[in-house]
C-alpha cells in the first residue's frame, strides 16, 4: 500500500549521535513539537511539490553556480532540504555569548601579535606558530587598524556532540561565505510554510545586510562613504553571494580591474570618470589582494592597494593577516587566548586537538589513526583531510607518510559523532549529520551575531563532511524566540 504521510515512527537513528528532533527514547524534542504536528498533516505529494518549488525557486532566482562541461555551462543549485533545523532560544543565547567571547579574544590576539606580542613573551602561544606561518603578514606589523577591529565578518563553525553541547569546529575569519544561503533559505521557508511560519516566533535574519552596511560605513569618519565589494568575478563559485550582498546593501560590486591607484588613493573606474573608494569589503584572499606585496601573478587584486591601506587611505575588510587567527594550529590555543586576554572561561568548547609536531601527540594519533580526523593546518573546504574511520589501509599508509614528512602541517581530532537532523530523502525522514555556521559582525558598537546561521547537512549517508564543495546541502535554521 502506498503511504500518504511521512513516517515519524520508523525514523532510523544513527547510533551514538545526538539527534536534533528526537531524543534517544524516540520522543520529539520540545522545539520540534509544533513542526511534528505539521508533518503529521502534510501528505507526501505536498512535500514533493514543496521540494520541487524550492528547486525551481533557486533556479529562477539564479541562486546557482555554473559547472562547465564540454564548453557548455550547466547551472547547479546547492541542495536544500525543506525541513528546518530548529534550535531553542536558551541554547542560542549560549551560542551567541560564546561566539562574541571568542571573536573578542581573537581580535585582541590579532592586535597583540601584530604589535607588542605579549602572548608570545608570556609563552602562552608558541612563537614558532607565528614565525613559520605564511598567514602571518609582516606587512601588518605595527599597523593600527581602524577601531582596532581585524575580523569584521566571521563565520564560526559549530557542531553538537553526543552530550548535546555545541563545540567549535573552526573559526572562519578570512572571507567566510554562506550568508546569502542563510538569507535565501529563510526566504524559501517563508514561501514553503506561509501559514505555519508566522506563528512560530522565529528570530529574523533579514536585517543582516543593513547591519553590515551600517558597520562598514562606520569605519570611516565621512558622511556617505563609498563602499565597494571586491569579487574575484563571475566565475567564482560564491559569485552569487557577492552580487546579492552588494545588491542588498546598495553598494558597488567591483573586480580588481575596476580599481586603480593614484597617489596612494584607491579609485574605481566609472563611466563618468574616477571615483574615490573609502571601504573595500573584499571577498578575495590575502594572497591575491596586491600583486606588489603578495602573489605577483595575481590578476584579481589591485597593485598598490596595501600601500594605500597602510597609509590609512582605504579600509580593507577583513583586515589582511587575519588568517593567522583562524589557522587550524592557532585554533588549539583559542581557549587559552580567552583566559589570557579576557580572564574568562570559554563558553563554547573546542574539540580535543592534537598537534602532530608534538612527539607525544604524534604517537597517540599514529597509534589510533582509525579513530582520528587528520587535517592540514592550512586547508579548508574539506579538502585534503583523512577520515580515519572510513579510509582504506592504503589511504592511511600514504597519509601517514605525508604527515611524517612535515608533521607541523597537520593536526588531528578524534572522530566525533556530529549531531544528526532529519532530512527528507526519497520520501522518508532520514538522519543526516549537520553543523551550524552562525555569522557575526564586529562593529564599533560591539559584536552582533545573526540569529541562526547556515545549517549544513552531509547528504551522503553516514558522511560527516558537510562542505558544499563535497556534496553537502543546507537547511534553514530557526531560532524559536519564546521557547526556553
Amino acid at each position, binding site marked *: 500500500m502506498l503511504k500518504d504521510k511521512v513516517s515519524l515512527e520508523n525514523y532510523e537513528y544513527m547510533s551514538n549521535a545526538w539527534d536534533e528532533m528526537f531524543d534517544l527514547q524516540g520522543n520529539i524534542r520540545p522545539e520540534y513539537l509544533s513542526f511534528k504536528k505539521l508533518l503529521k498533516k502534510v501528505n507526501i505529494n505536498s512535500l514533493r511539490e514543496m521540494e520541487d518549488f524550492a528547486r525551481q525557486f533557486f533556479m529562477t532566482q539564479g541562486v546557482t553556480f555554473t559547472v562547465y562541461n564540454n564548453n557548455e555551462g550547466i*547551472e547547479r543549485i546547492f541542495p536544500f532540504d525543506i525541513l528546518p533545523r530548529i534550535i531553542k532560544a536558551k541554547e542560542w543565547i549560549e551560542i551567541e555569548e560564546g561566539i562574541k567571547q571568542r571573536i573578542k579574544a581573537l581580535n585582541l590576539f590579532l592586535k597583540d601579535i601584530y604589535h607588542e606580542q605579549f602572548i608570545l613573551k608570556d609563552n602562552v602561544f608558541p612563537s614558532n606558530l607565528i614565525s613559520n606561518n605564511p598567514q602571518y603578514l609582516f606587512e601588518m606589523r605595527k599597523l593600527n587598524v581602524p577601531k582596532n577591529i581585524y575580523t569584521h565578518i566571521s563565520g564560526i563553525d559549530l557542531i553538537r556532540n553526543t552530550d548535546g553541547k555545541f563545540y567549535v569546529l573552526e573559526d572562519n575569519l578570512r572571507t567566510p561565505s554562506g550568508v546569502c544561503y542563510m538569507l535565501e533559505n529563510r526566504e524559501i521557508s517563508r514561501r514553503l510554510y506561509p501559514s505555519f511560519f508566522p506563528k512560530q516566533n522565529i528570530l529574523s535574519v533579514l536585517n543582516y545586510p543593513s547591519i553590515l552596511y551600517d558597520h562598514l560605513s562606520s569605519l570611516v569618519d565621512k558622511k556617505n562613504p563609498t563602499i565597494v565589494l571586491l569579487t574575484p568575478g*563571475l566565475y567564482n563559485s560564491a*559569485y552569487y553571494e557577492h*552580487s546579492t550582498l552588494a545588491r542588498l546593501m*546598495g553598494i558597488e*560590486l567591483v573586480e580588481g580591474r575596476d580599481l586603480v591607484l593614484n597617489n596612494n588613493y584607491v579609485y574605481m*573606474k*566609472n*563611466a*563618468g570618470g574616477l571615483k574615490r573608494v573609502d571601504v573595500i569589503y573584499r571577498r578575495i584572499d590575502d594572497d591575491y589582494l596586491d600583486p606588489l606585496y603578495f602573489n605577483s601573478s595575481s590578476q584579481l587584486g589591485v597593485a598598490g592597494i596595501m600601500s594605500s591601506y597602510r597609509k590609512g587611505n582605504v579600509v580593507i575588510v577583513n583586515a589582511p593577516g587575519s588568517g593567522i587567527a583562524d589557522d587550524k594550529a592557532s585554533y588549539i590555543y583559542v581557549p587559552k587566548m580567552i583566559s589570557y586576554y579576557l580572564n574568562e572561561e570559554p563558553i563554547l568548547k573546542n574539540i580535543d586537538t592534537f598537534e602532530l609536531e608534538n612527539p607525544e601527540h604524534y604517537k597517540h594519533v599514529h597509534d589510533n589513526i582509525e579513530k582520528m580526523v587528520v587535517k592540514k593546518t592550512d586547508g579548508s573546504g574539506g579538502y585534503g583531510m583523512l577520515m580515519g574511520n572510513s579510509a582504506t589501509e592504503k589511504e592511511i599508509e600514504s597519509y601517514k607518510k605525508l604527515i611524517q614528512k612535515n608533521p607541523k602541517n597537520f593536526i588531528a581530532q578524534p572522530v566525533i559523532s556530529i549531531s544528526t537532523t532529519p532530512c527528507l530523502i526519497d520520501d522518508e525522514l532520514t538522519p543526516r549529520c549537520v553543523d551550524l555556521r552562525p555569522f557575526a559582525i564586529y562593529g564599533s558598537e560591539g559584536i552582533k551575531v545573526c540569529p541562526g546561521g547556515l545549517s549544513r547537512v552531509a547528504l551522503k549517508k553516514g558522511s560527516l563532511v558537510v562542505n558544499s564543495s563535497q556534496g553537502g546541502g543546507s537547511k534553514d535554521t530557526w531560532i524559536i524566540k519564546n521557547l526556553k
Partner: protein
Amino acid sequence: MLSRVANNLYWLDRYMQRSYGLLNIISTNHNSTIDSGDYSSWESIMNSYMGFKSDKKIINYDDSLKVIEYMLFDYKNPNSLKNIVSKSRENARSVQDHISREVWLSANKYFLFINDQTTLSNFKKSDPLNFLNKLLQFNLLYYSTSDITQERGNAYCFMNVGKYFERIIQSVDFLYFKLLKLSENEKNLQEIVFWKNLLISIGGYQLYTKTYKSIFKIENIIEMILINDNFPRSVKYGVNKLKLHIKRLNTFNELKKTESFFLAEKLENNLKFNTNKILNSKGLRFFLDDLIKEINELSIKINEDYFS
C-alpha cells in the same frame, strides 16, 4: 557607475535585441519558404546572421527544420540563439545590482528555458512557428518588464543605447542585404506574398498597409525603414532614441558634450536632410555605405567615452 558595469548593461540589451531580430528573421523566412518552396533564402540568412561560411556545406538548406535547429541550438556557433541568450544572461548576472529583480528573473528564465534539456526535444515535436513564437514571448516579456520596472537612471540609458544601437544595425543590414539584392531577384517583385513576408520580418507590415495600402513600392519600404518618424524599427527612430539616451547619460555623469553625442547628432541630421538621396534607390547604396561607416565610428566613440 563602473565602466565595466556600463559596458555589460549595454551588451545585455544588444544581445537581447539580437536574439529578437534573429527569431523574427527565422520565423518569417520559414513562413515564406512554405509559400514559395524556395529554400535558397536560408543560405543568405546563415551567411549574415550565423557568420556561416558557404564553403562548409554541413547543412542541407532544403530541410528548414534542421536549419532552424542549427540556428537556435548549435552551441558551437557563437551566433546561435542559445549562445546569444546565454551571453545576454551572463551580462545580466554580472550587473544584478543595477537592474531590477524582475529584469534579472526575465533574462534568467529565458536562459534556463533555452538550456533546458527538454527544450530541444520539444522543438522537434512541435510546430516550428509556434515554438518560435514561444521564444519570442521571452523577448517581449523582457522588454515590457524592463519598461515597467527599471528605474530611469544610468543603467536604463546604457541598456537602451545597446538596444537601439543593435536595432539600427539590424535595420541597416535589412536594407543592405534584402532590398539592395532585389534587382537580382526581380521575378519576385510582383508577388504580394514576397513583400508581405519581407515587411513582417522587420515588424512593419501592419504600419505599411495602413500608410500605403497594399501597393508595394520599393521607395515606400525604404522610406519606412530608414526615415519614418513613427516606425520603431526605422533607423531614424533608433538614432533619435540613441541620441536621447546619450544626452541623458551625459547629464547623469556630468560629462560635457561627448564625441558620441556629436556623432549621434550628425547621424540624425544626415537622415533628416538627405531624403531625396535616400529615396532614389540608385543613391541608396552610397548612402548606406556612409551610414555604416558612421555607425562604426559611433560604436568606437561610445566605447571610448563610457567604457574605457
